[in-house]
């Protein structure tokens, strides 16, 4: 009772305080609609070493432009010429050319031969420095530094982690359609530095990075037998994964890199297994008579999404990592397959097949909120950027014309082609390089 009285008294006091506070005439405004447009940003060539300065600024501009969230302004329109990055720029002159962000940088050769790269990100309207960083590197490493600068700018302005200092493995396809050579290849996310990892004497499909971006699991037809292999990027060594009697495919690493989930086919029945890479112990996770395949771990490693036709059509299911609690989550029209869990954990990307069209979509992990985000009609095999914001996928051109790699923002905006040397498919995005 005493407690109750205290409460009453306290409430009365607070209410009285509220009532006797003079009410001011403050207008309340809710802005709920805006215009999604890329941020105009000025990135003059970095000062110091003219060649390296222009190169680095050029890569940064290209990175940010490709994200669809920035609009690097043409240098010809710049009013102020940056000569010293350690003085405050004249913000008015940058506002006059509609810049909202300004990046100033400098590249200098150190006495020991290394490059030193400094840059600052300025808020043109807030008239303040948002970011200032300095890097040291060997001159041949300048592209990575440029990507790191892009990542830092992207993260500071959007609040999300960047994804520019990453790489893509993919399947490079050459030769005529009837005798196509499929080789494993790797390149930077912007298409620079492409290198073949295999020689083309055997076919390679569905490559997947491990969490350290050092190992790749893939399916390969060596001696006409399709099996899952592990490939060490550093040494170039490959090994068959597990001594399975039959065909294995669709491998994917667990987030800790210690396990690989894959599909084993026996007499027409495909089921999902998981292998511990250290003990090589194998555990069967599904056992129904339908086709269960395409496993993908959640970022916490506790759940696995996969596709199954056990309900009559190909749909997406989720189970616990030990195989328990299997449940269907996709109920939309058409067939839904190849689920890939977002690194952020909030979404599953998948391929929808409906009316002869293949489209990339995303849905929440309970199956709700399905959205289609690609427009090609022959799109499949999504892979996430490490920040969970951008996806890449294969787009088949049809009629034996090969394939291309495309990327799209998770919102469905900014769909564009990723340039590859020749025909390319099955992209897999690496984690952020450390």
């Amino acid at each position, binding site marked *: 009772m005493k407690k109750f009285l205290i409460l009453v008294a*306290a*409430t009365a006091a*607070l209410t009285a305080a*509220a009532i006797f506070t*003079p*009410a*001011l*005439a*403050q*207008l*309340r*405004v809710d*802005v*709920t*609609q*805006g*215009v*999604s*447009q890329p941020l105009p940003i000025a990135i003059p060539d970095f000062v110091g070493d003219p060649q390296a300065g222009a190169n680095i600024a050029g890569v940064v501009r290209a990175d940010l432009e490709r994200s669809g969230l920035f609009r690097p302004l043409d240098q010809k329109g710049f009013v102020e010429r940056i000569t010293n*990055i*350690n*003085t*405050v720029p004249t913000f008015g002159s940058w506002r006059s050319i509609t810049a909202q962000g300004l990046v100033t940088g400098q590249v200098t050769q150190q006495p020991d031969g290394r490059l030193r790269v*400094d840059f600052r990100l300025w*808020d043109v*309207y*807030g*008239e303040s*420095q948002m970011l*200032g*960083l*300095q*890097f*040291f*590197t*060997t001159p*041949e*490493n300048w592209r*990575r*530094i440029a990507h790191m600068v892009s990542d*830092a700018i992207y993260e*500071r302005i*959007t*609040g999300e982690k960047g994804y520019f200092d990453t790489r893509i493995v993919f399947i490079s396809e050459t030769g005529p359609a009837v005798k196509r050579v499929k080789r494993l290849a790797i390149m930077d996310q912007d298409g620079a*530095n*492409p*290198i*073949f*990892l*295999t*020689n083309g004497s055997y076919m390679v499909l569905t490559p997947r990075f491990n969490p350290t971006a050092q190992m790749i699991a893939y399916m390969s037809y060596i001696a006409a037998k399709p099996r899952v292999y592990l*490939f060490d*990027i*550093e*040494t*170039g060594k490959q090994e068959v994964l597990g001594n399975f009697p039959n065909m294995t495919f669709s491998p994917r690493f667990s987030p800790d890199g210690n396990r690989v989930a894959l599909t084993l086919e026996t007499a027409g029945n495909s089921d999902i297994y998981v292998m511990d890479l250290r003990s090589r112990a194998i555990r069967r996770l599904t056992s129904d008579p339908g086709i269960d395949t395409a496993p993908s771990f959640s970022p916490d490693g506790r759940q696995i999404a996969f596709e199954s036709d056990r309900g009559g059509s190909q749909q997406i299911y989720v189970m616990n990592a030990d195989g328990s609690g299997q449940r269907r989550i996709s109920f939309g029209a058409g067939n839904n397959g190849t689920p890939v869990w977002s690194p952020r954990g909030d979404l599953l990307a998948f391929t929808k097949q409906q009316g002869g069209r293949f489209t990339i979509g995303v849905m929440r992990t309970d199956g709700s909120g399905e959205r289609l985000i690609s427009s090609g009609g022959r799109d499949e095999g999504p892979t996430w950027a490490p920040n*969970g914001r951008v996806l890449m996928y294969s787009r088949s051109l049809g009629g034996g014309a090969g394939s291309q790699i495309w990327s799209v923002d998770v*919102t469905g905006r900014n769909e564009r082609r990723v340039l590859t*040397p020749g025909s390319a498919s099955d992209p897999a995005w690496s984690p952020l*390089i450390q």
Partner: protein
Amino acid sequence: MSSSPSPTRAKAAAAAIYRRTQATTARGPRYGILASAVFHGLIFAAAIFTFQRNFDMAEDSNVVPVDLVTVADVTNVAAQAPPAPEPEKMDIPVPANEPPPEPQMQEIEPAPVPPMPKFDIEKEVKPKPAPPKKTAAQDFAALLNKLTTTEKPARNAKPAERVIPGIGSGNAMTANIADALKSQIYRCWSPPTGAPDARDLVVDYALRLNQDGTVASLQMTPGTQVAAASNAYTRAASEAASRAIYQCQPYRLPLDRYNVWREINPLRFDPRQMMEQ
């Protein structure tokens, strides 16, 4: 990304300030008093905490922030080594066999302190009656024509000494001015829309306008200030809103109603509808 508990609580508390009067009457009879008391206690705790912080931040506002970045000694960049059995060059030459040494990052010396935009620090946020919610979309252009006066405000116009109480309580005129302002801000506002939790992107500002429609002062509300300090998404959202407010000034609003639009609080930016589209 989930926000830490304190900003969430503070945000809820800040929102509750505006709902205070309704909150005490709308609750059920049994738990109403208890819930109300606890709630108000939280509000006061949050208010004390945030206002204190408010003053502290004003003291520190001359410092140019510099981020520290550390890079691991060991890199996982590989693949420059030629793979077995026979590597083959593509269009671009293969880099050296040895991966180049890991770039190092260091803190950069801050640049000379730039002039900071001058923001007035509010003493406190006063509760106020809630204006009516806008229901139907309006033709902004027509509205503007109706509202915009031909009279030019004086140069270097200064804010009035004091807001006249009583005006601003919900009526059609207030709603029209709110719409007129929205119609002028929205074209400059490009919010970040990638956050996993869209609620992290809702930010509130207190805006004071001069008679000529230019910004006299702009500051985040205490709740947003706390949230932006701990959540990178909220910080990005608050900066996008601030850019929009500065970029689209001066605002053309009816001068004879200056007492209504002199102070806008909260000026809320909520991109959730946009994200659903």
